[in-house]
């Protein structure tokens, strides 16, 4: 399960595939999710939206099973009360005003005190409940937030967001990411799809990585990186004696490749990041090299993502 193993399973996906004619959109995917924020990462066409649609019950798997809170989201109508979805498409009920739009969701969901819930949901996403304009006048960023208000007005236990940060300015993005974290921290399951690595990194460390319809990896992306034993880890070292340190690393068998950047840096590729990390300080002392900076170059999500997707 992505994230803490002790969390209650809220979503269980078992060997799910989805085909559209000859096109395989999702292929043999299994994972489990609990409360908290998880990023669903993958390039366009990876199958993220299809997966979110199956989790919401909007589409039926061709094979395999999807269970949300123990139920089949395709068949259990009452379960829909506990699911909020922000779809990728921009379209809204254009003839409505924001308040009418969000209130419709509250009413259809049987939300208690729908007026209050509507105001709260609209306020939470940073829009004005008193806005009299119709939705067809809204900007892309406002549409994203209107969709989010529609999704959260019934206080769902599961919130699925398909590229929700598209079209938002940096301030709005920060507000939304904070909101996702708040919702996740309140014991709910938040699954956010994105193909933008920077966004995902700010959403947290739990990821599901999809590529070409398959689940390529799941869990903490730093742990995923550690498991990539067949690929050397790279570090950049800033030191006053790069040549001496490079010679020592090769002599000790700690490096499978070294690139010196005169006058004060080198990039090291190592097959064993753990052994390298333990040995670098004593080695520098022995070689009379002063370590000023030691920075992993590919422990970030982008590196993990590229490796997984390019290799898929």
């Amino acid at each position: 399960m992505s994230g803490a193993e002790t969390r209650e399973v809220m979503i269980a996906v078992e060997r799910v595939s989805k085909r559209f004619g000859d096109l395989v959109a999702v292929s043999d995917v299994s994972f489990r999710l609990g409360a908290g924020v998880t990023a669903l990462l993958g390039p366009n066409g990876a199958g993220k939206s299809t997966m979110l649609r199956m989790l919401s019950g909007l589409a039926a798997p061709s094979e395999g099973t999807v269970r949300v809170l123990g139920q089949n989201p395709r068949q259990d109508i009452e379960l829909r009360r506990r699911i909020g979805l922000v779809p990728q498409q921009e379209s809204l009920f254009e003839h409505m005003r924001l308040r009418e739009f969000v209130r419709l969701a509250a009413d259809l969901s049987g939300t208690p005190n729908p007026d209050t819930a509507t105001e709260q949901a609209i306020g939470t996403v940073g829009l004005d409940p008193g806005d009299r304009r119709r939705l067809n006048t809204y900007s892309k960023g406002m549409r994203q937030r209107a969709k989010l208000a529609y999704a959260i007005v019934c206080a769902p236990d599961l919130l699925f967001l398909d590229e929700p940060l598209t079209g938002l300015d940096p301030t709005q993005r920060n507000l939304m990411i904070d909101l996702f974290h708040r919702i996740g921290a309140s014991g709910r399951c938040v699954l956010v799809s994105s193909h933008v690595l920077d966004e995902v990194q700010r959403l947290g460390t739990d990821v599901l990585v999809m590529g070409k319809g398959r689940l390529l990896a799941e869990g903490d992306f730093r742990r995923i990186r550690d498991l990539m034993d067949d690929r050397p880890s790279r570090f950049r070292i800033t030191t006053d004696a790069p040549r001496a340190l490079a010679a020592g690393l090769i002599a000790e068998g700690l490096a499978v490749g070294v690139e010196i950047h005169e006058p004060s840096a080198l990039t090291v590729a190592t097959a064993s990041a753990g052994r390298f990390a333990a040995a670098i300080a004593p080695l520098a002392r022995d070689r009379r090299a002063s370590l000023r900076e030691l920075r992993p170059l590919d422990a970030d999500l982008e590196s993990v993502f590229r490796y997984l997707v390019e290799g898929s």
Partner: protein
Amino acid sequence: MSHAALVFRFMFQKLLRGWGRIVVLVVLAALAIVIAVVLRNSADATLPEDGAAFLVWFGLSIVLPFGALLIASEAFSDLRDERTLVYLWLRPMRAWSATAGAAGAALTVVVVLLVVPLIVAGLIVDVDMAAGAFLAAAAYTGVFLAFGMILSRPLLMGLLVLLVWENVIGSLSAATARLTIRSYAASLVVEGGWDVGTPVGRSFAASIAVPLAVGAAGLLLAAWGWRRAEVA
């Protein structure tokens, strides 16, 4: 407010926003009234028989079915095309609530825009159009609502059904006319031995029951389509 009522209100407002369609229907309905007035004041026309022939041809064969197609088929297909069906589908609502609400809204629009003017036109030429027009509206609305839910090109398919089924097949013989909605609705309009250019003569009970059954079948089909829909 029930789910069906919420969908009704939503859909009614939405359908009334389709100005292009509304204008076309209002013009057609107004035309029926204008021609009825002309017939009323014509020395050549034999009323009410000529009035009934006109209203069966223009009202029940053209205005009502095509108007119901424009309104009812677009109720769900618009949402599918705009990819906004997700906002309704993902709420905890039974399929029949959604379809009944949408059907009610579409039927209301059809009745207000088309059935009422046809009744008025009928009154002008001494023909009682109320039951026939209303039941035809109910039948066509149910069928075309289902088309909008389950077919990818409901307008085109609806046009084919109206042209091929209702007009061509319905005109072949009295036997094949039994298969058309128009013949049942027309049977409620026509009295005695009037010749209205289309086979009539269905029993009163059948003329009531068949259009209602067709409309109900359309609703069931739409509800089935809602349940099995793969929503984008």
